[in-house]
């Protein structure tokens, strides 16, 4: 696809990196020529220096025959204006980043009226992500399919886990749960496991299940599934605001610590039911006084990455917190992240670009295919695709064991009118189903592609 990215900041560069790796034709627009130079020197893309909301600049970037414009500059208004002009000039699909809470409240109206394909609020998206993680403290990352009826969860097999050393057949026999282990990451490699596959310590396991069954499975394997009751958030930025709203809705009590008096007052007005503490969280005594030792979850959301890392490490040491989440904004050592021992890491720029990438992939996939949702798991080595079965084909109505499926491909879930089926050899795909396929094979465009 021909894609124009306006704004070459953290998110812009992450997007360019990912999109160019997926072989799209990318043009970046930014006012700063050094930012453009950095992008064009490092990635296979073209750069235009100028104001992205200017028609002539957009024209120079080729908006006439572009398929998509993504506006991720620092300013909401500029992003919206970029999209508006691109829509009028080239009739392209548009994605805007809008982060101001004032607009966020009216986002569906804006999206509708301006004809945007997608609006992303990085802070809100990050907050949702954190809230999801807190809901299942043992899982690292959760993706949803079929309007939330099916989830793909992700957890690491620890030393104490009963799953250690078991084959998948044993797991199925012993726990009798409606869950399906669909991908295992071991070191740098990704596997689509079969029955005799043996799980080892430190394997990162992804499984498909409905939320209810996922909870059941976690309970059976002795992982605590209780939602945390309280949380301590350090740093009262926008993520903290969205997150607190979200968590209050889930019935979790929230405490926010921020060192800025004015911001605290503002937050206390916005979030009447949340405990707002004005204090410097990098001071040990403040944390102790506010009971870091007894909090069930700890979230470091200050604007300084180093401080967040330090706070989380401290929390890991002194508290009983089941879940510790660290926000990292700038640091780009992706491979070091997996070595970080103190809980989960949230990187708003990655979340933003992931959301946008998903939309891009979907747009690309929907050109001549029927993929409903597409997720990349395990660093993009594994894809999970959701197909809806609208017409009769070779795969419909035949028991799965009789289908000659491709290698490294798994039918993970069949959703039949709201009923979630974990398929076995006797199951078959029917018209009207939506089917989730997990595979390391790239570029599946149709349900028929699952056959050899």
């Amino acid at each position, binding site marked *: 696809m*021909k894609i124009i990215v306006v704004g070459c900041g953290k998110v812009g560069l992450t997007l360019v990196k990912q999109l*160019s*790796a997926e*072989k799209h*034709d*990318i*043009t970046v627009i930014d006012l700063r*020529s*050094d930012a453009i130079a950095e992008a*064009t*020197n*490092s*990635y*296979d*893309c*073209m750069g235009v*220096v100028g104001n992205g909301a200017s028609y002539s600049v957009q024209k120079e970037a080729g908006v006439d025959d572009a398929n998509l414009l993504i506006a991720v500059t620092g300013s909401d208004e500029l992003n919206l204006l970029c999209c508006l002009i691109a829509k009028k000039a080239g009739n392209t699909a548009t994605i805007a980043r809008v982060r101001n809470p004032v607009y966020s409240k009216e986002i569906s109206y804006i999206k509708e009226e301006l004809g945007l394909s997608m609006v992303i609020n990085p802070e809100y998206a990050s907050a949702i992500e954190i809230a999801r993680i807190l809901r299942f403290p043992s899982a690292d990352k959760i993706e949803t399919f079929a309007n939330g009826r099916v989830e793909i969860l992700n957890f690491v097999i620890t030393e104490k886990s009963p799953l250690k050393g078991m084959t998948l057949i044993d797991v199925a026999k012993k726990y009798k749960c409606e869950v399906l282990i669909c991908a295992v990451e071991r070191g740098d490699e990704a596997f689509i496991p079969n029955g005799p596959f043996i799980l080892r310590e430190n394997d990162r396991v992804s499984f498909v299940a409905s939320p209810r069954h996922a909870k059941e499975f976690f309970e059976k394997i002795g992982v605590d599934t209780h939602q945390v009751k309280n949380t301590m958030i350090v740093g009262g930025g926008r993520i903290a605001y969205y997150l607190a709203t979200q968590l209050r809705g889930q019935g979790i009590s929230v405490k926010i610590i921020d060192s800025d008096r004015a911001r605290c007052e503002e937050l206390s007005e916005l979030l009447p039911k949340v405990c707002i503490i004005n204090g410097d969280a990098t001071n040990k005594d403040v944390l102790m006084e506010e009971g870091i030792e007894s909090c069930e979850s700890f979230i470091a959301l200050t604007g300084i990455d180093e401080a967040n890392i330090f706070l989380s490490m401290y929390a890991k040491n002194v508290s009983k917190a089941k879940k510790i989440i660290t926000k990292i904004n700038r640091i780009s050592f992706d491979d070091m992240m997996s070595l970080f021992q103190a809980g989960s890491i949230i990187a708003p720029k990655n979340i933003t670009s992931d959301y946008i990438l998903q939309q891009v992939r979907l747009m690309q996939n929907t050109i001549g295919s029927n993929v409903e949702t597409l997720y990349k798991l395990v660093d993009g080595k594994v894809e999970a695709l959701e197909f809806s079965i609208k017409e009769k084909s070779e795969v419909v109505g035949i028991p799965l064991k009789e289908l000659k499926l491709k290698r490294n491909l798994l039918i993970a879930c069949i959703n039949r009118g709201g009923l979630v089926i974990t398929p076995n050899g006797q199951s078959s795909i029917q018209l009207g189903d939506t089917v989730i396929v997990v595979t390391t094979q790239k570029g599946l465009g149709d349900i028929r592609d699952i056959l050899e």
Partner: protein
Amino acid sequence: MNYSFVFYILGWVLTLEAGFMMLPCITSLIYREKAGLWFLLVAVVTAAGGLLLIRKKPKNPQFFTKEGFAVVGLSWIVMSLVGALPFTLSKEIPNYVDAIFETASGFTTTGASILTDVEALSHCTLLWRSFTHWIGGMGVFIFLLAVLPMAGGYNMNLMRAESPGPSVGKLVPKVKESAKILYIIYFAMTVTEMILLLIARMPVFDAICIAFGTAGTGGFGIRGDSCASYNAASQWIITVFMALFGINFNFYYFMLRKKFKDAFSIEEVRWYVALILLCTAFITFNTWGFYPTAEESLRTAAFQVSSIVTTTGFATTDFNLWPSFSKTILIILMLTGACAGSTGGGLKISRFIIWWKSIKNQLEAFVHPRSVNAVEMDGKTIDKDTVRSVSVYMVVFLLVYVISVFLLSLDQFDLVTNFTAVLATINNIGPGLGEVGPCGNFAGFSYASKVVLIFDMLAGRLELYPILLLLAPGVWKKH
């Protein structure tokens, strides 16, 4: 320095060169010449070596500007060394240093020759000489990028190292697509010229070789008198095409996309055309009476101007005999060279535009000490870094130039010869004035001087840095 990756890319270059050598092999089949066997032998050995190097893709993908520049510099040297082998093996150019000079002169599209009698060479050798122009004109790496499935950010580093001009841009977002478009335009224009020359009744072999020489703005003739013995129509065609190949290829891309307004508003192209017209007019008047007809005066002047400004180096007359006003104009044109982003060499018109505007700004700063001004071209501000690097380029150029002239002066030639010999090689023109004029050649220089000139040709074609960087010890350190 990521050696495994550098050697991997070098392997591709060698394989590609072996592939290119098939063309003289085919020629030798047509003309039943034995020299073709040597080309075949060298091609087979080179291909074997190349394939050995590309057998396995290196694991370490780290490839930065440093590697890009080094591998381009290195590849051009290796290409010249390999391309010279058939000349020596077939004993047509018995001395290997001479053969390297001839090959380097070919690949760098210089067109300077050490041969005293060109017409004695076999057809396949002549074709290989001219074909090296065609390859070197647009560039080996641009070709590699167009045909190879090379993904990743590093390909831009290769393109930047090989393409001439103060700042290298792409035509379309993808390097691969840009490279393809460039080669398609290049190929189409070359074929057009061949057809036109055939219509003008030039022999087929001559038309092919001359078209290769024009396209790459090289300048190897296949006759002793370069282009003087071709008919008037052919000379006009060559004149026009030399000028066309000296134009920034962005111009043709705009034309293809039907953006005529954008195409004609490229500042560099306007200056370039104006320069050619103006100099042709001056020389026509200055040499009035040298030639029997007015048409011939104009044709000769236009041909020489077009040939020198694009750094091609074909000649239809011995301009050594011209009045010194005309000769001086030619020397100035030797300095300016053609447009950036063309196949021509030289310092490039766009650099002169930037220098000119910087000078204006500098003077302005004396008049209004507090004035703030930027250098702009094509309606866009040139960023400070580019302006600075363009200025530094001039200094580096002068440095290499002065050192080369100094080294050449050991050879007992007169100042004009030495001065223009270096200019003709470093700016990839071919003929200079004096002993190295259009009727002379470079055979008289000592081997040490020839090595200096080979260095100048390669450094000039790659715009100095890739070759100079090879001399910097820091580049060769392992990561």
